């Protein structure tokens, strides 16, 4: 049982680790695209956290099976939230990339330190 | 005319005057100056109309609007404010006459702006004088600072701007940092900031805090030019002389000492303060300011700067008198405001007249000038005598009362200070008078040949103005009954305690 309890938390730990990897990339990387990649990992980690909490042991996806009684379903709410969040994430990303493209055109580089030097 | 209406008019008239000046300034100079004079006269009439009421013991009140619960903009005329308003508004007429002569004689630029700001400053002074509570007082206090800034910076060159920065910096920062804190503290403790005879703080604070609050007020009111927040006053001397005369001898600096006196009388309550040893330091501080400012004045070579330091010393007279916290001294404080106003405005007028006529600013240049400008120097001498306190001048009256108060309180430091400063005053004023009348004109000092020119008196308007003030200085010695009568009303509670 100990082992299973440990495994039960594994999702949260992976969430933490992914979050940190993404966060690290955002802060430490000077390349703007790399920052955005880091940002998308960062956001994905949060999606994982939400989805992890919707799981019910022995449940299935929340699509009601008519006539079946006593069927456990996983929680639909976090799924809805994350559907929204995924689309928000890609929207932000697209905007960010558009800015990066413009930066490249105006500065000729996408490295943060070189941009700072240029001004 | 109901007194309420009069109060409102006293505020509105100079404001409207400012607007009219702005409009007429584009049309014609004479028209503009006529408007100024009419406004000044009208204001004086209105303010004087209130005097009999106050003498009868009435205290008309107007509440303009409530800003926050417990905090409103309101006006209430009481003897101190009445005196101050009367003084400022009456002298404004004379000063306007003088200004016209000065500004034209000197061919200054931006004259319209000058008159507008002047009118605004007078508005602020009226509001300050009639304010019914600390909040209103603070509002007009800041307005006064801001409206006089353009006057000080009038010339606009680098040196002037720098001085004006000192002026504004000291006044604005002390008021925001200390005065505002003190006011909010008062509101916090007492729940209101209304001026009530006998004070509103009695028993609400522990004595140490009272001492601290008093310090916040005294240093917060930078306009009172008590050391070490006096730096702005010499700096302000870069302004045109009419400004120095009315504002930095009368309106602004008097606003400072007026505020402190008012706070002592109506917020703390003089007898309450007297019962607390924690407030005794103020007399010493004022005494120190008197002596050291006089000493500094001794070393000045520029006439206006000398007058500035003299002003600092004289202002501290008022504060010291108020801080002695005895009835006679409180009256003395009020009377000295008037007496010093007459004397000092005369001195400044004379200095300005000399500058316009002869372009001379240094004391050393004044040798023998009495022969060329007899009227001016005669007035100057009267003003100087009043500063020293020689009868029959106004200065004697007030010194008499202050000295009386100090004796009442048995405050030997104060007595000593008064005597010492009289000697010092004599030491820096009398040589000038002597030089002007009895020494020969020395042309060798003026290396700048263009300056050496034959000159007589200053323009007629200026001479007229300074003659009137000199006459007032002497007249006050004989006819001061009304003022004393008025100011006795602020002290009955003191007698009873």
């Amino acid at each position: 049982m100990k082992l299973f309890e440990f495994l039960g938390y594994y999702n949260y730990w992976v969430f933490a680790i992914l979050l940190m990897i993404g966060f690290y990339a955002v802060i430490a990387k000077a390349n703007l695209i790399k920052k955005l990649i880091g940002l998308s990992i960062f956001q994905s980690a949060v999606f994982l956290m939400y989805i992890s909490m919707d799981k019910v042991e022995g449940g299935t996806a929340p699509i009601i099976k008519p006539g079946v009684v006593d069927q456990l379903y996983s929680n639909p709410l976090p799924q809805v939230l994350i559907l929204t969040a995924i689309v928000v994430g890609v929207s932000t990303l697209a905007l960010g990339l558009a800015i990066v493209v413009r930066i490249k055109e105006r500065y000729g580089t996408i490295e943060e330190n070189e941009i700072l030097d240029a001004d | 005319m109901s007194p309420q209406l009069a109060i409102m008019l006293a505020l509105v008239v100079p404001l409207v005057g400012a607007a009219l000046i702005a409009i007429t300034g584009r049309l014609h100079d004479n028209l503009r100056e006529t408007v100024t004079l009419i406004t000044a006269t009208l204001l004086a009439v209105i303010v004087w109309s209130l005097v009999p009421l106050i003498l009868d013991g009435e205290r008309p009140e107007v509440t303009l609007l409530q800003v926050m619960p417990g905090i409103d903009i309101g006006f209430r005329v009481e003897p101190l404010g009445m005196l101050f308003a009367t003084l400022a508004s009456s002298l404004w007429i004379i000063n306007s006459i003088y200004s016209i002569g000065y500004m034209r004689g000197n061919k200054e630029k931006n004259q319209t702006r000058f008159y507008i700001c002047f009118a605004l400053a007078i508005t602020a002074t009226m509001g300050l004088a009639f304010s019914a509570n600390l909040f209103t007082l603070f509002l007009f206090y800041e307005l006064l600072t801001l409206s006089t800034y353009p006057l000080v910076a009038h010339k606009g060159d680098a040196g002037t701007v720098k001085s004006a920065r000192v002026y504004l910096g000291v006044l604005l920062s002390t008021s925001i940092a200390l005065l505002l804190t003190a006011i909010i503290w008062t509101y916090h403790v007492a729940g209101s900031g209304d001026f009530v005879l006998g004070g509103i703080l009695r028993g609400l604070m522990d004595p140490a805090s009272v001492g601290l609050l008093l310090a916040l007020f005294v240093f917060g009111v930078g306009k009172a030019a008590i050391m070490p927040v006096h730096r702005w006053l010499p700096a302000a001397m870069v302004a045109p002389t009419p400004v120095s005369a009315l504002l930095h001898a009368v309106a602004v600096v008097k606003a400072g000492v007026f505020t402190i006196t008012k706070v002592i009388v109506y917020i703390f309550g003089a007898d309450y303060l007297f019962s607390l040893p924690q407030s005794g330091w103020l007399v010493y501080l004022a005494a120190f300011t008197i002596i050291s400012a006089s000493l500094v004045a001794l070393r000045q070579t520029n006439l206006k700067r000398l007058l500035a330091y003299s002003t600092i010393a004289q202002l501290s007279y008022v504060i010291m008198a108020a801080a002695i916290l005895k009835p006679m001294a409180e009256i003395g404080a009020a009377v000295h405001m008037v007496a010093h106003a007459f004397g000092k405005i005369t001195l400044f007028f004379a200095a300005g007249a000399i500058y316009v006529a002869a372009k001379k600013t240094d004391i050393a240049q004044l040798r023998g000038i009495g022969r060329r400008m007899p009227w001016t120097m005669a007035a100057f001498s009267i003003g100087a005598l009043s500063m020293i306190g020689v009868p029959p001048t106004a200065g004697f009256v007030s010194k008499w009362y202050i000295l009386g108060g100090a004796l009442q309180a048995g405050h030997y430091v104060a007595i000593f200070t008064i005597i010492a400063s009289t000697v010092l005053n004599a030491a820096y004023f009398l040589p000038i008078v002597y030089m002007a009348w009895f020494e020969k004109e020395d042309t060798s000092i003026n290396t700048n040949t263009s300056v050496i020119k034959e000159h007589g008196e200053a323009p007629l308007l200026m001479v007229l103005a300074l003659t009137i003030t000199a006459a007032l200085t002497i007249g006050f010695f004989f006819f001061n009954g009304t003022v004393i009568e008025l100011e006795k009303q602020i002290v009955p509670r003191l007698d009873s305690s």
Partner: protein
Amino acid sequence: MTIVFAIFLLTMLVITAVAIVQSSNLFVSVMLTSIFSLLMSTNFFVLDAADVALTEAAVGAGITTVIFLSALALTATQEKPNRSGRGIALIVVGLTASLIIYATFDKPRLGDPDAPVHQHVAPYYLDNTMEQMGFPNVVTAVLSSYRGYDTLGEVFVVFAACIGVLFILDARTGTGPKYVTRKMTGLRHHLIPQVVGRILVPFIVLFGLYVQFHGEYGPGGGFQAGAIIATAFILYSLLEGEQAALRAVPRSAQLGLVICGALMFGMVGVLCMIMGGEFLDYSVLMENPVTARQIGIIVIEAGVGMAVCGAMLSIFHAFAARSAEDTDEAV
């Protein structure tokens, strides 16, 4: 068994993420990001979130990768080495990590049916969807009705991103070839991909439509469908070239799709208000509230699909047009 599989997937996720950050070749990073999304999607599936898995696959692995690649084509593919800022990054990251790990130990265990999330609001949805909506997919029900307002917001986020990219990249919104495209012939000279692609495109669109309109009964809905259909058109433009794709779906049509989709959603809501209900209360649209809700949901899902599809296409073409312009300048 499932849990072991889940652990395997999660571990793979971490490894991929590390690889993404480590690789200095941006192209490799982007491709790994695509794999990362796919792994994530699988993981969601394991955790019983079919709808999310589908979305993550379509949006995360599909659209995101395409946008990344088109941006890379315009910028750089190699990251320059830079070691500054690592210390601060590690400290900040370490602090945040310890905060999260600290929080972990009071959290309900994975799959615990007694967890608060399964007790309070969610049961209402599970119990009442059939009755109130008349279809079994609870996620769709929550998405489009119970929390329809969120979804409206989300459509407008997409709309914002769309106009943002157009604004920033300054792509024309009008019709007509403003940019002369040079040699953007796609894969026309590669016969095999072209033929296969041509066969596939209609089927992908068909699948997209299936996902769109089957959303009430199985996993799917407007978002997924929009993304899938957009992918089909993007594939088409890769195959046939920018020009041909724009002939098929001109810019104005793309933008029109976004606007109409967003407005359709909003207008349904306004209609509900006019009919006397609250904003987005579909039940007032018809006599029978259940049918009314179904109608409302179909319309707004269509709106969502249109908006997402149009936005993704607009964004893609904005990037693509940029590269066309660039080559012109270079020549």
